């Protein structure tokens, strides 16, 4: 009998992704799918795809899915979760989606303490629309709408979502992880697992921010892009658990 050291997860369909070569969206998809499989909830999960490069993620997650309008995934998740409180519902959102147009929805859903899991893919750019500045783009980062680099005097300093989310009383769990190395990826999986376990245990709103690369948007080769996460992003977006347990009154 042969044993696998690493095996494809049945949390994903067999469909090949449309992502650019080396895009870490693919890694994050797999991590989420593996967690769903590990927790044995693939068949009770409803994924909420958002608008961004991951708009078609409903073709990859081997679950029932709803494709939400730009920024509103947490509201859509609220809708279906309130109908099926025992199913596992998660949103998968980019930084433009969650930290720009969808700020109200993410904070309000967290405020209500919806028992959902949010996978927040922070790649510091609008990938899908061709590399515009995101709220999370770093100071000095050149994008198609900050051609001279993000100027904090005009566009402010990048938003730190974990720091914000952890200030919301009804939030259960907030963690920031990364995808820049195998070790970071393994740690990311631990956080994602925790976030889904919380939901299964009815502990409430869990939020995992995952630093991710957009080599195309950043204009870097894939391997260089991972280095950019490590050298540039992590210092501004420190990894770690920001919150574990609701604030009680």
């Amino acid at each position, binding site marked *: 009998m042969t044993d696998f050291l690493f095996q494809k997860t049945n949390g994903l369909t067999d469909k090949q992704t449309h992502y650019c*070569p080396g895009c870490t969206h693919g890694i994050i998809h797999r991590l989420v799918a593996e967690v769903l499989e590990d927790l044995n909830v693939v068949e009770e999960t409803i994924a909420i795809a958002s608008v961004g490069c991951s708009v078609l993620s409903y073709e990859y997650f081997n679950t029932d899915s709803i494709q939400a309008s730009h920024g509103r995934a947490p509201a859509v998740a609220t809708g279906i979760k309130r109908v099926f409180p025992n199913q596992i519902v998660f949103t998968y959102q980019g930084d433009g989606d969650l930290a720009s147009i969808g700020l109200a929805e993410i904070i309000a859903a967290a405020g209500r303490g919806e028992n959902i899991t949010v996978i927040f893919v922070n790649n510091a750019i609008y990938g899908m629309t061709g590399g515009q500045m995101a709220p999370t783009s770093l100071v000095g980062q050149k994008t198609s709408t900050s051609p001279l680099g993000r100027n904090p005097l005009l566009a402010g300093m990048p938003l730190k979502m974990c720091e914000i989310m952890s200030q919301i009383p009804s939030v259960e769990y907030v963690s920031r992880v990364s995808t820049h190395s195998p070790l970071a990826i393994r740690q990311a999986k631990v956080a994602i697992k925790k976030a889904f376990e919380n939901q299964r245990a009815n502990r409430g709103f869990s939020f995992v921010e995952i630093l991710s690369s957009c080599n195309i948007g950043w204009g870097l080769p894939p391997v260089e892009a991972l280095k950019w996460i490590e050298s540039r992003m992590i210092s501004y977006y420190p990894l770690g658990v920001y919150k574990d347990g609701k604030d009680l009154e």
Partner: protein
Amino acid sequence: MARGVLIIDRNRCKGCELCISVCPVKILSLDYENANIKGYQPMKILSPEKCIGCCNCAVICPDQVIEIMKGDTNHG
């Protein structure tokens, strides 16, 4: 000798080189000779016997190209 045996789904590979960059024993490379069905130069393994089965390559691959079986450690 190999602790891990890679099963590579060549046609899924997009040639991003992430796996190559994280293999501690540097046994992975792109196949510059043959493009796969998608037109990418896919990853290939140079010295399968040197694989230590760390799974780094599979863990970082964004495209589910790699599965890894336990190598025949008995003979190791």
